[in-house]
């Protein structure tokens, strides 16, 4: 329709794309570091995953994970990498909100904010 908007959208997406790839590579590097640390320790036979027991609390909550990272716990470092990874799409939505603000597109600032609210609810609201 109007080409300046298309061009702007495309520019937002290009930044976002490069940012996302950087985030994934950072996350993969952290996971790999934690993984090497984990495998360097002796764990004996392979862990059994055939029955589900929820992971312990220090691996399912932000404060527990960060605490574990501070003590160089291998599993906590892997979880930190996963948190960085989960944060990449969240950051993507934030960057879109900023982009729409620049374009003065109020409707899409609102729509993106709803999506962000749903994501933050999932990440932070739990029993």
């Amino acid at each position, binding site marked *: 329709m109007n080409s300046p908007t298309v061009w702007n959208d495309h520019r937002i997406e290009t930044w976002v794309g490069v940012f996302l790839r950087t985030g994934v590579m950072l996350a993969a590097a952290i996971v790999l570091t934690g993984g090497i640390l984990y495998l360097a320790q002796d764990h004996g036979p392979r862990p059994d995953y055939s029955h589900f027991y929820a992971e312990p609390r220090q691996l399912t909550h932000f404060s527990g994970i960060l605490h574990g990272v501070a003590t160089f716990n*291998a599993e906590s470092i892997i979880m930190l990498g996963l948190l960085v990874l*989960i944060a990449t799409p969240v950051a993507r939505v934030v960057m879109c909100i900023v982009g729409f603000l620049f374009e003065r597109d109020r409707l899409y600032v609102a729509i993106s904010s709803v999506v962000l609210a*749903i994501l933050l609810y999932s990440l932070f609201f739990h029993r």
Partner: protein
Amino acid sequence: MTALEFSLILLVSSLAAGLLGALSGLGGGVVIVPVLTILFHVDIHYAIGASLVSVIATSSGAAAAYVREGFSNIRVGMFLEIATTLGALLGAWLTTRVPTHSIGFVFGLVLLYSAYASLKQRNDALTQKPDPLALRLKLQGSFPSGQGSQQSYVAQRVPAGFGLMTVAGTLSGLLGIGSGAVKVIAMDQAMRLPFKVSTTTSNFMIGVTAAASAGLYLHSGYLAPALVMPVMLGVLLGSLIGSRLLVKAQVRTLKVVFALVIVALGIEMIVNSLRGML
């Protein structure tokens, strides 16, 4: 088997799953969950946790490549993400409520459907009367079409597309997959968006949808670090290699072969679920 051997085998299997997922266009999640549950006897909760994380990695990792093509529509994606993220919350919540074998059963059905969808020929529908709601929501755009010209389009049947996206989100949260196949159906079939626009926008949406259930998975303890580590790294690597190969490969022949693999996995999942072996 030691932890090291187990991790290496998982890494190689996940690499293969990521490769297959990228080449078939179905995504790594659809392949890795059956591999983990059937081959490695991993409980489906851990399997969908590892898969969902890999889905985020694949989606975010490939985003830059998709953007370069200039087909994806950021507004269509964002609007529909309201539907997919809400669906994903519902799906992730359901995993804590419904019995394991019913997750496996639904998974098998989705596999069979995905195989069918991946083989179906798509046709770019001509633009009919645009939906007034689509115009108000600015669900329109244009993309480069061949000889330097721009082809413009407007979305149609917005409510139907939104509804289907809620289903796609629910399946994503319930099964730990990107459910790209359902997302493309919603945009391609219901909203009549050009196929290239549907597929590239879908890739962008998959990561956000998966992030919505990832929070609930994390808090419910589905993310087992020592299991996720090789799976996520393997699927990511496999899908990166796969997307490079895709440019040169004979897509049609590959798709038929992969569809057969997916059908076999789907039947296996359904049979195992019915026999209570998942």
